[in-house]
């Protein structure tokens, strides 16, 4: 990264912005400290118009249900948009709103009819025309629902009642002389009467319902047709809408750019960073297009704050997917070692050590390949590629451990007895493998401290690096030597021999402790136990492997004991149990091994050398998806 200052006459501001945007390499540092001479720049006057157009266009896009993530076969030439955008957007708006208006009109009609249907529904068992329910001088009419049948004989015998079952109760229509109205209402209310509103219109409810149903079908097919029209419009214009939306986003970005610049009355100044390899081309291009009115100056001063340098990770192709794991932790600072390349080997190795099984490994590879083909999200694709690496490593360790879905495939105990090679079955070698995992831990921590030494040396000099990192390294190895010599003697009860090795170990331990105390003070003592737990933490490489193998073994034994041994139809159940059990174990294996391998990096390894906190490199430009530059 090189720090650049681009300055020039305001007359060439927008030419310069166009050039910078096209090159897409300058990470602009926003100008914030305004004073009397330097002000924050003003956006281009086109910004209002651009925003208006964008709002207009996006409302059309949302009525056409265009989300802005669709794929289109061909890119749209930008030149064709610039000339026609206003006229075409207006015409599009007319076309689309004609259809959407028609749809909302139909929808409101449909709603009206449904309301009416809902009101008529309870009355459909009564043959009385609707108009005869109202307009009486001497009669009171009750139409409503009731829990049971009304009992009004004790009030009057002079009434006309119709009832029909409705829901959990009854619907009634009751005609009584006006003078009994109040008394009857009171009686009905005691029985849970709820009046039903009568819909407008004339005719027998049953016939009206048939009529409404026909209208509804017609309206719904009308709505469907309009929606078809909308789909046609969408198909016809989607490319244009996506392209012009992108065009507007780009233009807005350019118009707003001066807000990030410093400006005086007649000049503008941009401060930013660019990858050193891109410096030459943007410099000559700016010089050419502005005839020397805009200059690029390189700031080589040493006093650059490393925290403010934007970070773009640079790794060879095979390591690229692993960047997602480093970014998830934190981007490295400018003078920090980027651990991506190391992780390319170490992450799959740790994963494979845990899920060391040929069968599961092949499944993981297959899943990884499938996901990287099918899913479009870049992050998921990267994870899938890491999965392929991890699966390969699982297959390799599967051969070493001689495991295939929990069964031994080779050797004299295995399925294929004629292939014999020196495999290391995990259950037979627990103690050996436990020591191997501890050694792996020791080596990874050592590597971590060495990298940490380099980082510290670059950032704070040799003395600090020795106190902060070499001290821990000495304690790690001194402690290891001491434990390795003392522990076997203690467990066998032969007594501890004060050998030269032991003395060397103890000296390393003590000197390391003194260095650490000088470098970090008393707070370092609190960190001491973590040294032991960090190393022991690597034993998970074995424990998780053995437990995943245990589940596989259990699935195999269960399906054999419960089903296969019985034969006949039970074989099918046995196969089902095998598939389900191993599927679950694969998912568990991927999740657990994946997370634990990651944790061994993040918690045990990274903490020795890596603090991260770098700022992401975001160049000023746009990744075009729908448009072609003019």
């Amino acid at each position, binding site marked *: 990264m090189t720090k650049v200052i681009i300055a020039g006459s305001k007359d060439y501001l927008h030419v310069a912005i166009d050039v910078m945007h096209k090159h897409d390499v300058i990470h602009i540092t926003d100008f914030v400290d305004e004073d009397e001479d330097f002000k924050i720049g003003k956006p281009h006057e086109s910004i209002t118009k651009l925003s208006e157009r964008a709002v207009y266009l996006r409302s059309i896009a949302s009525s056409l249900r265009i989300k802005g993530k669709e794929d289109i076969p061909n890119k749209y030439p930008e030149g064709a948009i610039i000339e026609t955008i206003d006229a075409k957007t207006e015409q599009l708006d007319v076309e689309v709103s004609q259809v959407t208006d028609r749809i909302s009109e139909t929808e409101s009609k449909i709603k009206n009819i449904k309301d009416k249907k809902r009101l008529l529904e309870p009355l459909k068992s009564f043959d009385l025309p609707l108009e005869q329910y109202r307009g009486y001088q001497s009669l009171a009419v009750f139409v409503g629902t009731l829990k049971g049948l009304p009992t009004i004989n004790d009030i009057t015998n002079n009434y006309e009642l119709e009832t029909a079952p409705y829901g959990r109760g009854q619907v009634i229509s009751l005609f009584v002389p006006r003078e009994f109205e109040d008394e009857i209402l009171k009686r009905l209310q005691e029985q849970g009467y709820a009046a039903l509103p009568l819909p407008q219109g004339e005719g027998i409810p049953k016939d009206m319902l048939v009529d409404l149903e026909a209208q509804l079908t017609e309206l719904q097919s009308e709505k469907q047709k309009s929606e078809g029209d909308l789909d046609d419009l969408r198909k016809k214009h989607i490319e244009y809408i996506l392209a012009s939306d992108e065009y507007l986003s780009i233009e807005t970005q350019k118009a707003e750019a001066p807000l990030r610049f410093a400006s005086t009355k007649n000049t503008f100044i941009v401060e930013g960073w660019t990858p050193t390899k891109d410096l030459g081309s943007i410099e000559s291009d700016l010089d050419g297009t502005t005839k020397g009115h805009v200059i690029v100056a390189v700031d080589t001063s040493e006093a650059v704050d490393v925290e403010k340098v934007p970070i773009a990770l640079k790794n060879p192709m095979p390591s690229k997917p692993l960047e997602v794991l480093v*970014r*998830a*932790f*934190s981007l490295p600072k400018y003078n920090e070692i980027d651990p991506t390349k190391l992780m390319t080997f170490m992450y799959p190795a740790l994963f494979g050590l845990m899920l060391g099984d040929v069968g599961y490994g092949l499944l993981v590879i297959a899943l990884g390949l499938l996901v990287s083909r099918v899913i479009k999200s870049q992050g998921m694709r990267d994870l899938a590629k890491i999965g392929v690496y991890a699966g390969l490593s699982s297959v390799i360790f599967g051969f070493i451990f001689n495991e295939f879905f929990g069964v031994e495939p080779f050797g004299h105990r295995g399925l294929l007895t004629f292939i014999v090679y020196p495999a290391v079955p995990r*259950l037979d070698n*627990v*103690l050996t493998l*436990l020591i191997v995992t501890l050694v792996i831990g020791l080596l990874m921590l050592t590597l971590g401290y060495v990298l940490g030494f380099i980082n510290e040396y670059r950032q704070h000099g040799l003395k600090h690096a020795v106190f902060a990192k070499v001290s821990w390294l000495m304690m790690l190895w001194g402690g290891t030597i001491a434990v390795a010599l003392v522990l076997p003697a203690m467990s066998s009860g032969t007594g501890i021999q004060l050998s030269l090795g032991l003395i060397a170990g103890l000296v390393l331990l003590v000197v390391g402790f003194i260095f650490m105390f000088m470098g970090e003070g008393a707070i370092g003592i609190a960190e001491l136990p973590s040294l032991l*737990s960090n190393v*022991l*933490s690597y*034993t*998970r490489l*074995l*424990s*998780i492997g*053995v*437990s995943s193998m245990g589940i596989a073994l259990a699935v195999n034994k269960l399906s054999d004991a419960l089903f296969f041994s019985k034969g006949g139809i039970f074989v099918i159940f046995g196969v089902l149990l095998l598939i389900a059990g191993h599927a679950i174990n694969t998912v568990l294996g991927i999740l657990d091994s994946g*997370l*634990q391998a*990651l*944790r061994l990096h*993040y*918690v045990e390894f990274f903490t020795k050398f890596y603090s991260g906190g770098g700022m992401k490199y975001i160049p000023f430009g746009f990744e075009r998806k729908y448009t072609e530059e003019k």
Partner: protein
Amino acid sequence: MVDPMGAGLVAIASAIAVGATGIAAAMGEQMIGSAAIGVMAEDEGFFGKGLVMTVIPESIVIFGLVVALILLFVTLPALG
């Protein structure tokens, strides 16, 4: 000949080693996990750090598992 009583006690001991540490790890992760989710709701960028913090207590159960493995594969054979 393995003493069945002794072998049973070793099996129980390893079960306790895994079971008790499992409970302890779960209690720790429960607290850290919910706090981590809370932070992530504010800022998705904390996913990596949150994940790391959440799996830190997992070490406890791993140590339990190692103890159990040593009991089952080293101590138990030594008995017989």
